[in-house]
């Protein structure tokens, strides 16, 4: 944009201003618009190639039932990545939360207390990750690679590798609230995902905490020079992810009314893929909640779509890979063009 409008801008007529604003809007929201374009393109492809599946409400109900389990965690994971950190331990946190849930239930027969203890476990695991990373200066990739093994190991030791029924929890209020159905069809976990997404957006964009996350990921030295407590903020981001992971673990387990010691193992790469597909930069400092939310549903839909379109399940991973790589290239291209 040239400076030809210099000095005229303040007096310019309404239409000129409007077009300028549109340009500004596109620039400011390029990553979200990019992922939305990918989303709608894929959706149209799915509908055209498998109308029998993608024009029926059942498939969307299925997505809303299963996608939230990992999409919930993708929201705080987005914040972790924006802060230029990473966490690989959240799938183990899901399972460890359920182990303390079961231990508490067996000791007290209180489902509510068990739920609270599971959440506290998640916060504790996140706090410990943060302490290892911030106080000992260990890169988060390595630190959480370690804690991921440690907590999965703790799950196996404490549960002796035994899975167990949670059928008793179905009688408690917790089940309809966390993993029930509203009006006979709409899954409540989808409502929780929407709530977490909105809270995540507010926290990231309208709260000091989020402002500091962006600044830390962008330039941690600047953040420190300007008086931001970068250590405390980073520890809190990990605690938030721990909390949501334990929550997602309880929701996912209640959904099937069963505890598997391998709970969460399939979610690591899907959750990470949702974040990066959504346009969050691996270099920190940029990323959006909306992008992650849409990214999670794209990831969730690919598996069903592959089969519905008539390909065998063997194709799923190949298509995952293709869409992730193409989207990340698109995001990099967009962010360079929009400078």
């Amino acid at each position, binding site marked *: 944009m040239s*400076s030809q409008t*210099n000095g005229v801008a303040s007096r310019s007529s309404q239409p000129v201003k409007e077009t300028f604003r549109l340009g500004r809007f596109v620039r400011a929201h390029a990553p979200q618009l990019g992922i939305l374009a990918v989303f709608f393109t894929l959706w149209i492809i799915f509908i055209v190639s498998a109308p029998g599946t993608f024009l029926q409400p059942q498939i969307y109900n299925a997505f809303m039932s299963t996608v939230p389990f990992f999409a919930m965690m993708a929201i705080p994971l987005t914040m972790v990545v924006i802060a230029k950190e990473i966490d690989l331990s959240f799938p183990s946190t899901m399972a460890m939360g359920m182990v303390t849930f079961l231990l508490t239930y067996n000791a007290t027969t209180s489902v509510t207390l068990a739920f609270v203890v599971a959440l506290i476990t998640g916060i504790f695991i996140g706090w410990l990750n943060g302490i290892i990373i911030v106080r000992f200066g260990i890169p988060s990739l390595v630190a959480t690679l370690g804690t991921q093994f440690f907590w999965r190991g703790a799950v196996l030791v404490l549960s002796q590798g035994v899975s167990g029924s949670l059928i008793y929890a179905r009688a408690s209020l917790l089940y309809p609230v966390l993993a029930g159905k509203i009006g006979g069809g709409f899954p409540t976990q989808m409502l929780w995902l929407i709530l977490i997404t909105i809270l995540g957006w507010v926290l990231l964009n309208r709260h*000091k905490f989020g*402002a500091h996350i962006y*600044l830390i990921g*962008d*330039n941690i030295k600047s953040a420190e*020079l300007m008086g931001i407590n970068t250590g405390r903020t980073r520890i809190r981001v990990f605690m938030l992810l721990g909390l949501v992971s334990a929550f997602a673990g309880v929701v996912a387990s209640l959904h099937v009314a069963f505890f598997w010691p391998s709970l969460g193992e399939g979610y690591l790469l899907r959750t990470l893929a949702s974040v990066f597909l959504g346009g969050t930069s691996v270099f920190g*400092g940029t990323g959006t909640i909306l992008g992650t939310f849409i990214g999670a549903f794209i990831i969730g839909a690919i598996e069903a779509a592959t089969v519905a379109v008539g390909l065998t399940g063997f194709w799923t991973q190949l298509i995952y890979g293709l869409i992730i790589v193409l989207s990340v290239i698109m995001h990099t291209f967009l962010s360079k063009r929009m400078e």
Partner: protein
Amino acid sequence: MEEYRLELRNVTKKFGEVHALDDVNFQLGRNEVVGLLGDNGAGKSTLIKIVTGYYQPTSGEVWFNGEKVDHLTVSKARQLGVETVYQERALAELQTLWRNIFLGRELANRWGFLDVTTMRQETHRLMTQSMGFTSTAVNPQSRVGTFSGGEKQGVAIVRALYFDAEIIILDEPTMGLSLKETAKLVNFVQDIKMAGKSAIFIDHNILHVYNVADRVVVIDRGRIAGEFLPKDINLDTLMEKMIRVAETGSLD
């Protein structure tokens, strides 16, 4: 006894075995502009980072307005009215202009929720009134990484001024600036003086420092080598002394 705006008493800062500062005494008076001169690695940046709370002194005391301050942190120093324009500018280049202006000092309510509207409006006002941005391509939502060197420096300076600073520290502010921008900056230091505030001005260019400072302090190898009043010494003599101190460690 005269009460200084800022005083360092016997401050020593060690990084391992390296003495970055060795038993330094430094005073900054009210409404005084002190120029800090010294070669690379003399300890200028370490000294100001102690004043801003970024580094903790290994030993010694920091006093503000006649009161000793223990465990000075960056946010405590900012509350005491210290604002800094850092050599490295301390900007977050992927973030918008308004987020950079309010970096670390976001306007928020007591629950920490941001007042985005006010911050954007204030940024717009500062841009047009103080930064002299006229280009329509620059607005509070622009990313700072797209700005020129002079514009970035303008952001760092306006940020320091916005928050009612009492002590303004300028660490190599003319680095990477054009001649015109440099002249503007020197005027700006004079404005600080006119506004009744204090400043510490660090620059490689002795001429800039000589012209605006009330007092010039020379640092060499972590020690205060000497201090001069510009009215008592001419520029050539000061330059000779600077070269001598860098070579021999002694001013005379």
